[in-house]
């Protein structure tokens, strides 16, 4: 029996039992939607995730952070760097310290993980995350503003600027100066003129 088997037989045998793929235009198409693919991938966390690209970010004090590409491209600056091909080894971020960079990465991760707020629960969860995220001291908050501006992350920039705006709202000028240690550089005459100009704001 074995002697009679030659390559031709084997080929024919294997060919005959292959599923036929009709190529005609009217044949049913085989395709998957994005959500189906994501669903499929989520069943294989270890194997599939490891094949997605990671980016290494280096802070100003030399510390490195490895993040998924999807998280890193929340920052338009990093996204452009990757597209321009500057991201071979690691991306240096000389304007961002490691403390701030770790916070920024935490923010981006959370916003990438949460799908586009379709359900109310996800939206509220994100809102409470945002509210807790900005409960930091002033110097960290301002550093986050500068980092979000440098890294060009619009949602983080809006969030932090809105927080500072809320800190300013409702305060008198003296209180604003006190809160932020702003020096009053008006001369007494100038100050009086400015107050008169803006008298409607003080009533």
């Amino acid at each position, binding site marked *: 029996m074995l002697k009679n088997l030659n390559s031709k037989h084997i080929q024919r045998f294997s060919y005959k039992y292959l599923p036929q793929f009709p190529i005609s235009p009217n044949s049913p198409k085989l395709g998957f939607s994005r959500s189906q693919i994501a669903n499929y991938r989520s069943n294989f966390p270890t194997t599939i995730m490891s094949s997605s690209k990671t980016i290494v970010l280096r802070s100003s004090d030399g510390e490195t952070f490895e993040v998924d590409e999807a998280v890193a491209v929340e920052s338009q600056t990093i996204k452009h760097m990757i597209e321009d091909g500057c991201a071979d080894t690691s991306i240096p971020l000389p304007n961002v310290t490691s403390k701030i960079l770790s916070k920024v990465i935490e923010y981006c991760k959370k916003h990438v993980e949460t799908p586009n707020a379709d359900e109310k629960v996800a939206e509220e969860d994100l809102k409470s995350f945002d509210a807790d995220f900005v409960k930091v001291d002033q110097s960290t908050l301002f550093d986050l503003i500068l980092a979000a501006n440098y890294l060009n992350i619009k949602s983080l920039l809006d969030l932090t600027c*809105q927080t500072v705006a809320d800190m300013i709202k409702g305060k008198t*000028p003296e209180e604003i100066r006190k809160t*932020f240690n*702003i020096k009053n550089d008006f001369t007494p005459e100038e100050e009086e003129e400015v107050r008169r100009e803006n008298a409607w*704001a003080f009533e």
Partner: protein
Amino acid sequence: MHIKLVIVPFWVECKDNIQHNTTQRNTTLSYQIHTINQIPPSSHLFTTTMSSLLPDLTTRIHPEPPCILSPEPQQLDRFDSLPDSLLLLIFNNLADVKALGRCSSVSRRFHSLVPQVQNVVVRVDCVISDDDPSSSSNSSDKSRSISTLFRNLIGGIFKPIQALGQFLGPKRSSPPSTAATSPLSSPSTSSLSVGSVDGDDLEQGGGVTHHSPTQVLKNFNEIRFLKIELPSGELGLEDDVLLRWRADFGSTLDNCVMLGASSVVYPDKAASNLSNCDVIGGNDDNGSIPESFYTNGGLKLRVVWTISSLIAASARHYLLQPIIAEHKTLDSLVLTDADGQGVLCMNREQLEELRVKPLSASSASKRTLVPALNMRLWYAPHLELPDGTVLKGATLVATRPSDQSVQREVSDGLWVSSAFEEPFGTAAKMLVKRRTYCLEMNSF
């Protein structure tokens, strides 16, 4: 050597503050320093020499020489690290005009940046009615005019039309005793006022000072998005009645949509689970208006609603003219009220149109002339929304000037149904599907 370097700058600076002749002390000092160098450095010696010298100097110099201490981190001005563009972003998020005015008085840098803010929201505190002159000559007229305001607000559906004429008339200038405060705009312009309403203040300056939005906005040069919020809707209605309008104006009325209902029942949380979609189509036949509608005053009521909304909209439009003329950089202007009753919008093309072709005022009242209109009306005696809200006698009216091309009506359906916020957007969408009735109205 190291110790010497540390000490010398300290003493040299303080020398400037010392008024007495200290040369002798300094030579003594240098002697002291020399001795330190020759002796093996020991901290004990160092502290004793320092401590023996310190008491002398502290009596003579300012207790806190500013040169010595570098600013501790918590005393730094954080805004110094932000460039102007980021500070402007913060101000744009702040938006509220009073808060911006206060910021303007904080420091020179803020003062120079506030006029460049592009996104401003003005919250008007009160609307002044032009009462008879006798009541306003009194410096305590504030409380009186408020009560007149309230009297006009509470009333049947027909009163509001009269009240509107009073509300939106020329602004009464404040009594002469308040001349010391900022000057007010001319009487022919707005009758809105920004500034606190303080009826209790009956001191020499009179009750309140009024500042119109026009004046307040003079401080801003580059506004692009302006939103003005009135304290309440102009139309006084009974509790249950729902009335919402949205108007777009160019130099004259472009279109206006009004949604009204004679009663609204909002769902409570428990009942919302019971909502079902098939009730919508349910008992209502072909969407036509029942005969009783014409006889029981239902149609008349709705026409009155429509006219009131149009009057309110045209009056608001008239008030905005000086602001629009002054701010050429405006991209969008929205005049709304705290109740959400009416929204007047103007986009860039419409604003340009108004600057180029000034509006025509209606005679004898401070409002824009409303042109001849084509109206389309949809009615449902009982409308149930998917979230459980029930509207009785729901009406949707869309008006458009008759001289505009008929072609635009095709895209109207979409525009009409997106004019209102939820839940009334859904109501509008449902009403549009019913039978359309057309009416015409003359200009007024």
